[in-house]
């Protein structure tokens, strides 16, 4: 008998006004002891909702759950709150996405792990503490004796997620449900958490349900795969089969989007200095010796600088990747290049004219209008980078209002051309950002950046918040813009896979310093720096061949410069 089997699960959200929304339309899956079931789908596919519904955690008003969710043969749909409470924690452990939000900030981690035990059984305090130490050790917290009385704020994101896993495993449950447990984490941390889960499963024979939007992430851990879309199961089966020979076009699309590795360019053989020509060659933007230190002068002695002594050139029509984990200073550097922040040392210049200042500390640098128009930014989160109270038309008309004096009709022509460039229909101009999907919003954000015909676009994690198929579309758009308009991109990302696929050259940042730079293929095939190698080794999907080797493959549809 399966540890957990969901049969024909349906979830309907009753709307107070308007038609009911059926979020899950008859989903079935099962997981056996010692195996991992991965549920993969994009946002809105119903993957999280079906799990929440199956475990009685869906407490949204108006949600109607039908079907069966059998835990060792007991149906959880319609089980009493008390029965469910007894099961959760002891028989079913949960790990969620955001470890920042799921740990109580004012309780020590030891106390929180202990609570997972004491909320189900009475045990002497000494015994509980011993078990907590054992658990912390098992999930790889170094020196658990010293860390047990620390607060969550003293732990990094990865460590917090380990604590969450310790809580989930405290009573050695037969089933562990992990909902995007590594999505908020750095790639190296993600790799270690995946390792940890695999190890724990081997030791305890736990059944794991692993929910993710990324086929690459689950490829190393999954035994069985369920692909969901729009509330239905598109494809399910043994992982080897799904990865080896996907039956459904949608699965293939997801797999294609998950493939990581440097794309081939025709000028691969050419060294960076000989790849001349009018399109790619002359240095456009020069960053020399840039450093930045946050905080007041007095406090600076205690904190390391966010960025120190970074120099690089960005050439016309080049896509330069800026890679690093959280805290590496990549966003600070991006803000400096974008002219949103003054560096504390060094300078940035475009076509030889410096636009940063290290003198007077200005709260907000003001670039002269001409330079301002040449350097534009696309931000990470398309949900917060568009003013929710303005229509797309007003958002996009803003740059024209400011810099050019256009008659209403000319403006309309410009706006339509603009949305056309980012592959949106003109009807989108009349909508509010709230009515657009994530991908559409990011396209609008790109369109706004393009309005002033910039030479350089700083894309700060511009695809990180998007679904994987949407990601590939935006990446394709960036490539096309480089090709058609010769725009240079400074592409900042924590995702090496994306960077390797898109960028001509890569700059690896660690602790505010450049540890490695070079052509993408070079860096990915023969990294000199150990940190770079660690980053590359952590790219998920190796086992299933989802990572392309550094060598060019000449695949169709890749960009040709």
């Amino acid at each position, binding site marked *: 008998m399966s540890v957990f089997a969901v049969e024909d699960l349906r979830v309907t959200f009753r709307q107070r006004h308007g038609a009911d929304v059926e979020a899950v339309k008859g989903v079935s899956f099962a997981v056996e002891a010692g195996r991992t079931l991965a549920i993969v789908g994009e946002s809105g596919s119903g993957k999280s909702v079906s799990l929440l519904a199956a475990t009685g955690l869906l407490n949204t*008003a108006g949600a109607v759950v039908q079907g069966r969710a059998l835990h060792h043969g007991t149906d959880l749909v319609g089980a009493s709150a008390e029965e469910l409470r007894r099961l959760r924690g002891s028989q079913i452990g949960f790990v969620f996405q955001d470890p920042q939000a799921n740990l109580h900030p004012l309780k020590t981690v030891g106390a929180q792990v202990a609570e997972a035990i004491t909320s189900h059984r009475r045990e002497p305090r000494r015994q509980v503490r011993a078990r907590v130490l054992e658990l912390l050790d098992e999930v790889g917290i170094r020196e658990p004796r010293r860390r047990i009385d620390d607060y969550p704020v003293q732990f990094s994101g990865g460590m917090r997620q380990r604590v969450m896993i310790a809580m989930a495993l405290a009573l050695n449950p037969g089933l562990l449900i992990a909902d995007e447990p590594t999505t908020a984490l750095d790639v190296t941390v993600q790799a270690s958490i995946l390792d940890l889960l695999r190890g724990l499963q081997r030791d305890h024979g736990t059944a794991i349900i692993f929910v993710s939007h990324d086929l690459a992430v689950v490829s190393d851990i999954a035994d069985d795969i369920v692909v969901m879309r729009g509330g239905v199961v598109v494809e399910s089966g043994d992982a080897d089969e799904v990865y080896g020979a996907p039956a459904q076009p949608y699965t293939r699309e997801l797999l294609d989007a998950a493939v990581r590795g440097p794309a081939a360019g025709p000028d691969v053989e050419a060294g960076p200095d000989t790849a001349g020509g009018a399109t790619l060659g002359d240095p456009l933007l020069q960053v020399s010796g840039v450093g930045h230190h946050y905080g007041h002068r007095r406090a600076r002695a205690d904190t390391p600088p966010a960025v120190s002594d970074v120099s690089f050139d960005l050439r016309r029509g080049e896509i330069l990747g800026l890679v690093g984990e959280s805290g590496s200073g990549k966003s600070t550097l991006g803000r400096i290049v*974008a*002219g*949103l922040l003054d560096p504390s040392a060094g300078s940035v210049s475009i076509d030889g004219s410096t636009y940063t200042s290290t003198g007077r500390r200005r*709260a*907000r640098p003001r*670039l002269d*209008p001409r330079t*301002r*128009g040449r*350097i*534009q*930014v696309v*931000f*990470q*989160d398309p949900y*917060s*980078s*568009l*003013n*929710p*109270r*303005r229509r797309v038309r*007003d958002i996009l008309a*803003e*740059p024209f209002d*400011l*810099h050019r004096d256009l008659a209403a009709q000319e403006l309309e022509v410009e706006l339509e051309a603009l949305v056309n460039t980012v592959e949106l229909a003109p009807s989108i101009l009349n909508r*509010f950002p*709230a009515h657009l999907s994530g991908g559409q919003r990011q396209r609008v*954000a790109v369109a*706004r*950046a393009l*309005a*002033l015909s910039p030479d350089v676009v700083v894309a700060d994690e511009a695809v990180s918040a998007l679904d994987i198929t949407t990601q590939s579309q935006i990446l394709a758009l960036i490539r096309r813009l480089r090709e058609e308009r010769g725009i240079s991109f400074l592409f900042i990302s924590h995702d090496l896979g994306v960077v390797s696929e898109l960028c001509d050259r890569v700059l690896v940042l660690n602790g505010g310093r450049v540890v490695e730079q070079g052509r993408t293929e070079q860096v990915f095939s023969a990294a000199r720096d150990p940190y770079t190698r660690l980053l590359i080794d952590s790219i998920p999907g190796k086992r299933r061949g989802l990572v392309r080797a550094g060598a060019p493959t000449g695949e169709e549809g890749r960009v040709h410069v």
Partner: protein
Amino acid sequence: MSDVAPARATLFLEAPEPEVAGLARSVLRDRSVRIGVTVVGVVVLLAVAAPLVAALVGHGPTEQFQSEALDSSGVPIGPSSSFWLGADGNGRDVLVRVLYGARVSLLVGIPATTIAMVIGTLVGLLAGFFGGWVDQVLSQVTDVVLSFPFVVTALSLVALNRTEDGSSRVSPVLLVIGIVAAFSWTYFARLTRGLTAELRSRPFVEASETIGSGSWRIIRRDVLPNIAPAVIVYWAVQLPTNIVAEATLSFLGIGVQAPTPSWGNMIADAQRTSLYQVQPWFLIGPAVGLVATVVGFNAISNGVRNVLDPHHGTR
């Protein structure tokens, strides 16, 4: 004056439907908004209809009917067919005076709160947006104003307003509006400052900067529309407080001057003469008016806040 700190000041950025029509529809669907709008509507209607009622019963708001409305020992009569809520100590019709009092309350409360909103929002926007020394100076000024005792300051201002021959330099109504506004803009300033500072670091504000928008343009286009709902809700929170403030001043005899009826000076009158013991409607009339107005506006602001709050229902 107001101890209702803007504790649940939330940016209503994720409001589900940005269109005004859709928003208005969902606001009006809220039960407490409906109750509030009904109550306030009735109050406003009665205030507007005050002259009609006066004409109907034939009693002006300041006319004294000593022979009809007072008995032989000078005690006012209770409710009767011609004096629906009875009379006050001077033989005036309580109902007519309560209705005219509503006019005064709204006439003082609405402009005072609106002026306070404009000043406070401006100060808060500047402090929150520019930060640094601008913020320090403006926040200090706000704190200093907050530390003035309302009643004492009001009393001295009224004293200063008297000329030697006993008349007023400025119309007392204008003075009351000024005093109430001067004491309530600080709450708007604090609210707005917080909201603006939070918006200041939002990517869409930075995005406007990167296309070269100036500070004023960003404040006008990006910040103001996003804080407006919160500020407007707070206007409805502050309005009843300010109506009570006007009543307080009138009760103390330094607001709207007799014989012009105001809920505050009517309550004061009833209390001073102790006549409410024999003619309770003398006190109940203005008190009910005051309570109804305050409750009505509070219900509206509560409901609107609930509808606009994206966490509506989860807390």
